[in-house]
């Protein structure tokens, strides 16, 4: 067993300090960070400054509404002495709009839609209150009467409140899973061929067993990929939290994170052992890409299926692909991130993928063991699987 740990440790130490790994880590973290930040950019501003000229009622309503709101949008008011000063401030962009004499709004062009609604609401409330008070109703009663609880949203269909956020998260998940599984499988393949091609494997296998060498390699590179995945998730969620996006994050984020880790581990184990088995058939780095073609096809099909699922999560194709291993390792986490999935489907997909991974470990280790010492010409798969 110690041989396996030593091999794993070597992989972590030597691969972890290569440029390839470090650049991959930084780039993926930056991409996910940017992705988490994007909604912020497209979402418009979350605070407004409104100039007020002789409009105490509107001003009061704006301040109250802003303070009492659970929404992120904040409105600050700024009094001006006269309309000319307010007009100048609007043109200079110092304020987003200015309310004059309780009945006009100055804006540079059109008033921002969200701000317009806020101002209109404040104006309505203020005017209603004024008119009711003018009709000699008790101001306190008026104030109580116009307090209206906002409409409660109840969806009788699917809960689509978080649809956009879920789709966004699912998209990030599919890209990250694809990138990490692909990169790690390539690392495993390159490592196997490096050892076989340089014949280090001959020395190694007089000291340790083939399963220790293969297992250590898969384990070590898996740890690196897991570190990469955790960093990426931390950056993504951290950015989302820092930019105030978290209020829109759907419930069950923990489940989505854990699910992604679970599916990643299965997908990684499956594809990396396949990569090791295939690459053990060749002795030169130049031959790696051709021998890995079937693996690349499998990963690409999984990726496209997963991407399709982010757009059409409810289709039969998405459901079927999310059950069949190894596609399920990328499609199912995307489905669960993108919407509700019946528990039995997740269970079935997990059971099938676990079985497929176990099978791949058995067959892959066998191929590797038989092929890795046969240097020279490419070994035919049929010669080693029997």
């Amino acid at each position, binding site marked *: 067993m110690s041989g396996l740990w030593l*091999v794993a440790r070597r992989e972590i130490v030597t691969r972890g300090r290569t440029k390839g790994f470090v650049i991959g880590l930084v780039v993926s973290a930056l991409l996910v960070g940017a992705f988490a930040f994007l909604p912020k950019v497209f979402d418009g501003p979350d605070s407004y400054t409104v100039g007020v000229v002789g409009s105490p009622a509107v001003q009061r309503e704006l301040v109250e509404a802003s303070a009492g709101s659970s929404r992120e949008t904040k409105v600050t008011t700024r009094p001006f002495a006269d309309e000319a000063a307010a007009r100048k401030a609007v043109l200079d962009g110092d304020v987003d709009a200015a309310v004059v004499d309780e009945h006009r709004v100055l804006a540079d062009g059109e008033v921002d839609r969200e701000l317009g609604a806020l101002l209109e609401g404040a104006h309505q409330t203020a005017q209603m209150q004024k008119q009711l008070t003018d009709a000699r109703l008790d101001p306190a009663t008026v104030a109580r009467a116009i307090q209206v609880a906002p409409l409660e949203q109840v969806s009788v269909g699917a809960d689509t409140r978080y649809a956009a956020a879920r789709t966004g998260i699912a998209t990030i998940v599919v890209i990250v899973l694809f990138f990490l599984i692909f990169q790690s499988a390539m690392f495993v393949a390159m490592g196997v061929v490096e050892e076989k091609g340089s014949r280090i494997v001959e020395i190694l296998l007089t000291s340790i067993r083939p399963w220790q060498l293969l297992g250590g390699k898969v384990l070590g590179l898996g740890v690196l990929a897991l570190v990469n995945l955790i960093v990426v998730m931390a950056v993504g969620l951290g950015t989302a939290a820092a930019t105030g996006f978290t209020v829109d994050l759907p419930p069950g984020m923990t489940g989505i994170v854990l699910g992604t880790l679970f599916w990643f581990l299965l997908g990684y184990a499956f594809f990396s052992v396949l990569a090791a088995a295939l690459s053990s058939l060749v002795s030169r780095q130049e031959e790696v890409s051709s021998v890995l073609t079937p693996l690349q096809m499998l990963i690409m099909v999984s990726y496209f299926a997963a991407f399709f699922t982010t757009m059409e999560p409810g289709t039969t194709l998405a459901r079927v692909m999310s059950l069949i291993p190894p596609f399920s390792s990328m499609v199912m986490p995307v489905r669960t991130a993108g919407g509700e999935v019946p528990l039995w489907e997740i269970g079935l997909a997990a059971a099938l993928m676990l079985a497929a991974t176990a099978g791949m470990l058995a067959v892959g280790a066998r191929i590797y063991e038989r092929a890795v010492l046969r240097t020279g010409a490419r070994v035919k798969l049929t010669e080693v699987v029997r």
Partner: protein
Amino acid sequence: MIEIDDLHKRYGDKTALTGVSFAVKPGEMFGFVGANGAGKTTTMRILMGVLSADSGQVRWNGAPLAFADRRRFGYMPEERGLYQKMKVAEQVEYFGRLNGLAPAAARQATADLLERLSLTERAGDEVGALSLGNQQRVQLAVALVHEPQALVLDEPFSGLDPIAVDALAEVLVERRRAGAPVLFSSHQLDLVERLCDAVGIISAGRMVASGTVAELRAKEGRGVLKVVVREAAPGWTAGLPGDLTTDGDEVRFTGVDGDGQEILRAATAAGRVEHFGWERPSLTEIFREAVA
């Protein structure tokens, strides 16, 4: 003791080994010689378990050689293999750990070996940045780091400069002194002759000779008696034993039984004897004769 017993190996319809047998005793340095493609590497790979024989057995101290025993062997394959991107000391230490050394012991053994092989200054360099000769030394360090109980080295001297050859020879002699059987193959027959207690000659997958150099001489190379007599009367050799070839005053007698004292007497009688001595066949000559 390493015993190779009746190994047979075929690659497809090509026969690589036919009944190869020999033994390397504890504290014995065994030189394994043969032409290219004669079967040296195949034999050594089977010995180290990276290739399986069609039939035959490798034994260690009387029992079939097991994986656990082999871990305590030092092995240097024909095609050198090192992690090019790994640092020298890190790499030697790694192989020490894989062969069961504790971290501190591996570090210490690495430092000692690098010192002996004049690699201390390169300890922190990537192996790929070293010259081929230095990479060869690292390869050797990898084979030796765990103080192996036996050494199996395929062409360890190829590509080394004379100073590195001496350093390597010294390390091998030391392992032999510690009681380890040392088996190595080489084309540098003068080196084999100088270092080895025993020699095995393989040709076309068969062992054609094995034993101590003296035994091989006695068996394979017949002694040649060289006599140089100045101002000798022509025909002084008439009636003397053996076949002779004459080259001016130089006469070579082959196939002489006994110590040749009668030839010496005849020579002294014939003229001024400038040279009288046995020419020992070199290993090269024995080798040529054996594989012919």
